[in-house]
């Protein structure tokens, strides 16, 4: 008899998947039920929102371009105020 395991299938870039696997390892494998292939994995249903939040946090930390953009916007606004 086969087993049916309840969970959420995630399809993503291999780069995103490796970040998810790192988060999973740092939390004693609490998120991932099964590592399927380069771009697919199954995670605990109750942990999906938590995982999305942690992934967003991680991406914010590692993509500094966004910060630089907002800085430049602020500079423009400040200049306008100065006039």
């Amino acid at each position: 008899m086969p087993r049916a395991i309840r969970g959420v299938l995630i399809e993503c870039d291999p780069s995103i998947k490796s970040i998810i696997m790192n988060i999973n390892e740092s939390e004693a494998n609490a998120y991932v039920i099964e590592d399927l292939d380069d771009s697919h994995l199954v995670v605990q249903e109750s942990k999906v929102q938590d995982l999305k939040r942690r992934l967003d946090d991680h991406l914010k930390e590692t993509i500094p371009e966004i910060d630089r953009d907002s800085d430049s916007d602020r500079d423009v606004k400040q200049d306008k105020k100065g006039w």
Partner: protein
Amino acid sequence: IVDQIRLWQLDTERMATTNGFLFKEFDDYKEYISVVTFADEIGVLQWRNDRKGMFFITYAGLSQVKDFVKNKNKEKKAGK
């Protein structure tokens, strides 16, 4: 249209998610193939790997796939 929604999801959320069930640990390859083929035919299959003998179906597809597995087992027992 489904593909477009999926691409849009990937772009905005960086990942596409599907609630459902992972099927694994089939007795043999023949049993696996018959069940995964059924799941594909009724349109609930989301992912498969024939080498690993595993597949993932949507949440809504469970009852039909489960019934199919049960019936297959009954047939197997009756055949013996």
